[in-house]
Each structure stands twice: as structure tokens, then as C-alpha cells.
């Protein structure tokens, strides 16, 4: 027997574009090969029992693999949910696999697996807060994992890792913390269940264009220097560490490329932020130092 402890994980996707999975493929260190094949932290290996894009098998054999993990590793497996959970019309708008020749609504999977997991990561804006499929008019009755858990009285620890998509570091870091430090402790998550490690500060607080904002120098059209506030940037109300972390191995990120932040880690995304191209209205713009003051109170 090997000394490496196997942590079983099941990754299920509902109303999703698959972008969260693709984003996680972009993880640099550890690489995705390190995550799937090697020990993600010393002595621990994540054994991914199901992922729609990666699993070699198909059909009944992978459905069985999910069900076996649920039963054999009850209370010990990690569940990752990507995408919204459609609930209208008995959940017919998203189904995965069959039982007794009947398609299984995705909603059932979230409930059945959610109850028995050690912890659940709602990965991406959709499973965290509804995202774009949850935007008006929401004909398929989509809900976030948080809403489903509340409705069903499921108390399994839940961590929201929003973003459209989330940065791979946010996911890998969250998993690493679970394996190294255990379940989230008081104060680890904000009131929307986001890890403060990654979502603790506003984009605006660390923005490299912040000096332009303070000087009142605003870009009037794309390609101009200046703060992107008047071109629709949602950085002043969006919590994420993109300005420091940057994207795709640090080659770029939204504001550096001349486009405003789209607010994709916020529950307001996209309906309550206005057009991506319109200036935020009726919001109080925080100033440098507000964050620290808040901490001292």
C-alpha cells in the first residue's frame, strides 16, 4: 500500500459553459498534471472520480463511479459544482445520466451528492450566485448551490469561488487550504462564502489605474490612457485580487488590456451592474484606506 492518502473528488457540471473547467486547466504551479496525477500537497492525491471533459469512461460506467464515491466515501469526498442548477419543470432543463431508463435531473445530483460530501466548492459565478444563466428572465428557474442547500436544509460546508471564470489560483488555493488546514474556520470566508484570501479587497483598491481615478483623468474611448470608470469599469464595487494576481500566467488581465472590470465575482453580475459599457450609477466609490478602517472597527 502506498502512503499517499487518496482524496476522492467528484466534479459535476449543470447549466454551465465549461469555462471554469477550462480555466482550471490553465493552472501553472501546480500544473493541471500535478493536480490530477501527482500529490497536490505532500502525502495527498486528489482522485478525480468524475469530470465530464476528462473521464475516460462514458455512460452508465461513469454514473456508477459517481454513485460509488457517494456511498463508499460518504463524508470524505470533495464535491465541485460548476454551473447553475435549473429547477423549473422538475429540472428537465439539465439532466445527467439515467436511472431505470429515466434521465436524472442535475438538481437531484446536487442534493444527493451535496448531502454526503465532506465539503462543496461552488466553482464559478453560476453555481455561486446564478451568473448569466440566472439573469432575467430566468426561464429555467436556475438557482445557486447556496439557494439549493438552504431550500433542502443541507448543512455541508460550502465555499463559493465565483468568477466568470474564476482564476485557477482561486480554485487550487481553496483546495490546498482544505487539504492543509481543514474546513474553513470563522473569518476565513466573507458573508457571501468567498475565501477572503482571494476576494478580500476591491479591484479598485489595487488597480494600477487608480492614480488616474484619484486625479480625475478618465479614458473617453478605448485605447486611451486613464481610468476606465466612465467606460463602464465595475472595479469600484468588485471584490477580487485580479490586479495583483493578473491572468493567464500574468500576461494580462481585463483592466490592463484596456477594458473595464465586468464585476464577474459579484452576485450583482450581470443584471444589477448596468451595461458593461455604462458608468456605474448610484454607488459610493470607496477611497483608499476604507478597507483598513473597516478592519479596525
Amino acid at each position, binding site marked *: 500500500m502506498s502512503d499517499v492518502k487518496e482524496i476522492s473528488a467528484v466534479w459535476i457540471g449543470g447549466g454551465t459553459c465549461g469555462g471554469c473547467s477550462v480555466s482550471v486547466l490553465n493552472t501553472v504551479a501546480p500544473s493541471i498534471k500535478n493536480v490530477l496525477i501527482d500529490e497536490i500537497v505532500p502525502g495527498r492525491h486528489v482522485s478525480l*472520480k468524475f469530470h465530464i471533459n476528462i473521464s475516460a469512461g*462514458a455512460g452508465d460506467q461513469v454514473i456508477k463511479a459517481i454513485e460509488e464515491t457517494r456511498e463508499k466515501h460518504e463524508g470524505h469526498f470533495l464535491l465541485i459544482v460548476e454551473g447553475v442548477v435549473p429547477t423549473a419543470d422538475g429540472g428537465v*432543463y439539465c439532466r445527467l445520466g439515467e436511472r431505470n431508463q429515466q434521465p436524472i435531473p442535475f438538481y437531484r445530483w446536487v442534493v444527493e451528492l451535496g448531502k454526503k460530501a465532506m465539503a462543496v466548492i461552488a466553482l464559478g459565478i453560476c453555481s455561486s450566485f446564478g*451568473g*448569466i444563466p440566472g439573469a432575467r428572465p430566468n426561464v429555467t428557474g436556475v438557482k445557486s448551490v447556496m439557494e439549493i442547500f438552504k431550500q433542502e436544509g443541507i448543512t455541508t460546508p460550502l465555499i463559493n469561488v465565483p468568477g466568470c471564470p474564476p482564476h485557477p489560483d482561486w480554485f487550487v488555493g481553496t483546495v490546498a487550504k482544505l487539504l492543509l488546514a481543514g474546513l474553513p474556520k470563522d473569518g476565513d470566508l466573507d458573508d457571501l462564502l468567498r475565501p477572503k484570501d482571494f476576494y478580500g479587497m476591491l479591484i479598485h483598491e489595487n488597480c494600477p489605474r487608480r492614480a488616474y481615478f484619484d486625479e480625475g483623468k478618465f479614458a473617453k474611448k478605448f485605447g486611451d490612457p486613464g481610468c476606465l470608470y466612465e467606460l463602464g469599469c465595475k472595479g469600484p464595487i468588485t471584490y477580487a485580487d485580479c490586479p495583483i494576481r493578473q491572468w493567464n500566467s500574468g500576461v494580462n*488581465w481585463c483592466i490592463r*488590456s484596456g477594458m473595464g472590470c465586468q464585476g464577474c465575482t459579484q452576485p450583482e453580475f450581470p443584471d444589477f451592474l448596468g*451595461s458593461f459599457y455604462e458608468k456605474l450609477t448610484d454607488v459610493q466609490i470607496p477611497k483608499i484606506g476604507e478597507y483598513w478602517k473597516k478592519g479596525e472597527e
Partner: protein
Amino acid sequence: MGTIVIDPVTRIEGHLKVEAIVDSGEVKTAKCSGMLFRGFEKLLEGRDPRDAQLITERICGVCNHCHTTASALSLDSAFGIADQIPDNARHMRNLTMGFHQIQDHILHFYHLAALDYVDVTKVAAYKGNDRILHSIKAFISRGELAPFVPRYEGDYRFSSALDQELVSHYIQALEMRRKGHEATAVLAGKLPHACAVTPGGMTEIPTIDKIATLLSRAKEIREFVEDIYVPDVIKVGETYGDYFEIGKGCGKFLSYGTFDLDGGQSDYTKRDRLFKQGTTSLDLKHQTLDLDQINEWIKYSWYENNTSGHHPFEGETEPMPHKENGYSWIKAPRYKGEAYEVGPLARVAVAYALGDPATKDMVYSLLSHFNAPPDILFSVLGRHAARALCALHIAKNLESWVLSLKCGEPVYIDYKIPEEGAGVGILDAARGALGHWIVIKDRKIDKYQCVVPTTWNASPMDDMGNHGPIEQALLGTKVKDETNPLEIVRIVRSFDPCIACAVHLLNHKGRELRRYNMA
């Protein structure tokens, strides 16, 4: 008579179910079902037209950059500036989509399709010095083989040595596709779901450091395609040669073309593109593309029946989840009333039929390995080979596109959103013909419609009873072992289905769209 149900089909994007009725080991009929419905176009109605682009790219986390570019083209067209986009921005759009499509083809061959042919467990016997293979050997010896098992067992034919080499390439390809995303993000902001492509052009002016890094990145990815990807596809062809003989499909092909080589023509069907516009069939005769010949049928889709057969601009789609005879959330688009395959094979076939010299050279060079005529391409392995050729064709052009960028010169033209207007943006995404149609009223989106590659390929039957291209490719297939139906999944995956893209639509009320001038 038996029924093989595969739900879910894995190693594709999204929720796909395939059902095949098999008699004496042969597929007699097949059904392809899309099992997810979100309703993207409905949620666009009433929004700022500019937002369409940042919302529609979120239809798909795999094909996002093709959506964002197609949407930008449709908005440029609706705003009347399609022929005024600065050349700098056109090159940047070509580059970002070029890097993106290559990494997408790499992802498909190695990470979605290869496990149908390559047996990872053979690495257990590895005895050499490669560190990657040693770490996989250690993984295998620990005994928990997920996600590589369970799998369909049986027909894995490579020698241990070749298997081990391909597994090593599987791992290298993970890194290369990540780098493809990085290269895209250099000009596009971030990936997936870029932000720097915008109606009117791009948001970031190129700088010399970006040109330098892109040149190096373009060379690296080209070398990977030339030295590893294309040769690996040939190895699969040499070992699984019978897969050049099955999965032929509907035998009709459609391409919108892609990568604009000139920006002065506002009608995208007439624009000079690297990949060419048109249709063709098994006879390889080229025909011009006519967007008015597209209709969508829904007799077997879970939507209300009353408007089956309409042009995408005139469709009206209401979900009807419990409809009798319905079996998919995917509609059935048809061209001139017939099923057409879209994707890399269609792009290669259309360009070949048109006599495009670069395409002909690539095809001849590939076929020389097999000493075979072009019609072997109409097959499972033909699709994989055509995909590799598409990656190669783009890779050979990237460096010259980078050198066309002009530091400090404009990338964006300002515009006014019209009170009323309409636009269409068409291009060939990695997976095939992608069209975005928009109608603007009172400066808001009145209607928005996307007809995407997998809607064509994974479509169910139409009202006339014609099966969709994947369904047709399955008909007549001999399945050796019904509990391990490798033939079926190999055929389905050769189309690289993307169900997130295929099912996204809902509810279009208008019927008078053709009165808009679509130029």
C-alpha cells in the same frame, strides 16, 4: 435487436446522450440528444447591444473566443462600421482567434479524443528515463486510476513504446494548450472569456514587448503542431487505419470561412479569408454560400411546433419539455433542406474544392503518408486529420500576422448605436460554422440569434425525416462489443461536439427580419 444508451457522452463539452439501436452488431438507427437548455438569446432582449458580445462569449467556455469575435462582427455590421475596423484590430482579432483555435484543436485531439486510442495503463511497464512517464508510473502503482478508468475496454492497439510516447505528449499538450490561452490573452486581456475584443475593434494598442513575446509564442506553438501534433495524428492513422473507412456522415459540408485577410468588404460572405466560404459534397465541387438557404426545424426538438422550418431570423422557439417524439434540446438547422456537416473537415473540403493552393498542398502531403485518395478524409480519422491541418494552416500564418501589428497605431473606431438596425457576424469557429444575428430597436437588442457548429452536427432529425450529421455517421456502423461500444464514441468524438454551444436559444418573436438590409 438491442439499444445502446450512452448518457453522458464524456470527453466532449456539455450534456450529450447518444442512443443507438443495434441489430446483428450493426447500428440501425441513432439519436443524438442535447440534455441542457439555458436560454441565452432570450436574456439578451432589451439589453445594450454592446453587451451581446460579452454575454454570448459566455455561451461556451471552450469556444468563447470564436463567439466573442463572431458577435463583434455582427455588432460592427449592425453599427455600419464593418468595413472601417482598423487593420491593426483586424490582425489582433486574427491572432487572438488563431492562437485560440490551435489550442482548442490540441485540446480536442489529446485530451478529449486520444483516450479512445491510447492506453494510459501501459505506462506501468515503462523502464526509461523520462520524468513525466515516471510520475505517471507512480500514479498507476498507487492503484487509484481515476479519471483514466473506468473506460470502455478492448480495442487499444498501440505498442507499449508508442503508447508511452503518446501519453507523454498528452501531458506536454496540456502545457501547450495552456500556452495557447496565454498567447491569446496577451492581446485579448484574459482567457477564457476575453474582454479586449469589442465592437469597433480592440481595446488595447499593441506594444513592442507584446510583439516580441507573440513572435516567440507563435514559433513555439507552430513547432509543436508541426513536430508533434500532426505526426501523432498520422500515427493514429497508421495504427487504426479502418477508422478511415467508417463514420462518413452526411457527405455535405459547409464553411463560413475565417480569418479576415482584408477588412474593406462589409459583406462577410464575400470577404477574402484564410479559410474559404462555401459548401461542397463528396464530389468536391465548390458552391457559393447563401445565408438565406438556412432553416431550422424542430419537429423532434423539445420546442413548440408552430414555426418549424424558419430562417434563423424568423424563428419562434418556446420550450416544450414533454413533447411527444421530442428527443433533444438541439434544433435541426438545414441548408437547402439538407443536413450539412461543419467543422475542420468541412473547412478543408470547401477550400480544397475551391482549389486553394495551400490547402491542396497540405492535403496531398498528408495523403502521401497513406498513399490514398482525398475521399479517405470523409471518415472518423479524416476529421482528426483535417483538424490537425487546420491547426497547421493557422500556425504557419501567425508569425506574419504578428509582424503586421503596428505599435502605437489605432485599434478602435468610435460609432453610434443606431435607433434601428440589424447585423450578421459569421465565421468558422474551431468546431465549424458559427453565425450571430442581431436586430436592434430603440437602441436596444430586439432579437439575437446564434446558429452554432454543434447545432448543425449534433442535430436531431428534421421534419422531413433526415437525420443529423452525427446520427448519419453512426448508421450502419458495426459494433463489435455492445458493452464497450468504442466505435460509437470514436465516431461521435471525431465531430468534437460542444453541447453548451449547441443549446442556448429561446423565443424569437419577429417575422419581418428580411426587410433589413443585411450588407
